[in-house]
């Protein structure tokens, strides 16, 4: 059971130390809250609400007004925290069956954590399945029934067109597999081995030995994206067209391995909102 709020005398005197979090990195208010709790190793069943509330408010202070939906989600959580904080300050009857004001929040956090765990498992199953291939499948061609097409052609027109036709080379319809000239896997191996030595490397430097063939640039870039998607490396670019860094996962900034993707690209929710 949850301990009574009185038992957890909250000290937020030492809250003054800079507590910077990048809000964009989080998938929502629950994610941010969980991060704050885990980072300070707080007991989830006895969250120091006053401290967490202050930290949460500080973290969302800089939140942009460009994405109102997402700002709203964080603000709603902030309001909830402030309400709980106020309830904790009020004296409560001792006999009470009364629930700890934090109970619902704790329940949501635990549920969220469990979902995150299941999500990680689903991700692994998805990766395993993607390593097995079924027989290739080609989309059948759409056929338009002849009766739907009205005929409006004279024989002269027909002859004119027929005389102008040069027969095309017969198209090879065989299902054929063609290897790429430059393999992405090779590039991925190259990136990982360079990162193992150097920790971080500029995209441009990886290309230096292959200037003659633009395909190397394309495949190196794709390999970088793929590795980032597999959460093997972290990509960093200060602004568009600026130096693109490939960073070893171990050298990546704090928690970069958690969501490298979300920091760079909008999630589909965010895409939907901007529509």
């Amino acid at each position: 059971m949850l301990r009574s709020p009185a038992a957890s005398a909250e000290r937020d005197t030492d809250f003054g130390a800079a507590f910077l979090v990048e809000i964009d990195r989080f998938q929502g208010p629950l994610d941010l809250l969980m991060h704050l709790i885990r980072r300070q190793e707080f007991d989830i069943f006895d969250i120091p609400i006053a401290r967490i509330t202050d930290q949460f408010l500080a973290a969302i202070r800089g939140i942009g007004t460009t994405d109102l939906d997402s700002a709203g989600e964080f603000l709603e959580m902030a309001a909830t925290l402030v309400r709980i904080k106020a309830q904790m300050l009020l004296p409560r009857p001792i006999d009470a069956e009364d629930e700890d004001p934090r109970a619902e929040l704790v329940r949501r956090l635990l549920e969220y954590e469990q979902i995150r765990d299941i999500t990680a498992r689903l991700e692994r199953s998805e990766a395993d399945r993607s390593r097995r291939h079924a027989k290739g499948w080609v989309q059948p061609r759409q056929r338009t029934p002849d009766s739907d097409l009205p005929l409006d052609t004279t024989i002269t027109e027909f002859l004119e067109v027929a005389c102008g036709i040069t027969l095309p080379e017969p198209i090879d319809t065989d299902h054929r597999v063609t290897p790429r000239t430059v393999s992405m896997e090779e590039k991925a191996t190259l990136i990982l081995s360079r990162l193992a030595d150097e920790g971080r490397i500029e995209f441009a430097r990886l290309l230096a030995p292959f200037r003659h063939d633009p395909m190397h640039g394309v495949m190196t870039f794709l390999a970088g994206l793929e590795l980032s998607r597999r959460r093997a490396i972290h990509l960093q670019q200060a602004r568009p067209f600026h130096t693109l860094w490939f960073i070893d996962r171990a050298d990546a900034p704090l928690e970069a391995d958690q969501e490298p993707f979300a920091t760079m690209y909008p999630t589909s929710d965010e895409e939907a909102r901007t529509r």
Partner: protein
Amino acid sequence: MNAEQIVEAVLFASDAPLRAEEIARADETLDEDRVEDALRALRSHYLESTRAFDLVEVAGGYQLLTRPEFAPYLDRFDTVPRTSRLSRPALEALAIIAYRQPIGRLEVEYVRGVGSAGVIRTLQDRELIEVVGRGEGLGRPLLYGTTPRFLEHFGFQSIDDLPHPEELPVVLRDRSLPLLPEEEG
């Protein structure tokens, strides 16, 4: 032509998993039991002869799939179809829907703490979830559930392949589990 060969031919020609009773349609001499026997024989045959593919049970059906260790070789070819993976937010929403189906959008959003209309649409477009009914509440909200494609996408035989609550390390074990479909009542 024996049963094993017929079943093999049907599986080879199919691009999606087939159930035993579907395979049995290939010939009058076949029924579900004979197909099951043939499937078992084929599977052990493939294992013994170290083929690069094996017979896999997926979404309640059977399919010939290459063994995972050959993925690196196939990845070098553009024309081998690649399954695109889902984003974290989409997987989160899918996890919630899988465990609590039928479930409405608002409940998914409450659990995740963020808007989920976009990911739900993505999951619907990819036919991983579908509308399975309407809820009782205000406006009779649409309720979503998972599809057979969902099982295929993750290589599950059935919904029971999802991790069970007792396997989940989170402290929820001894608490009421709001995530489980059977507790939804």
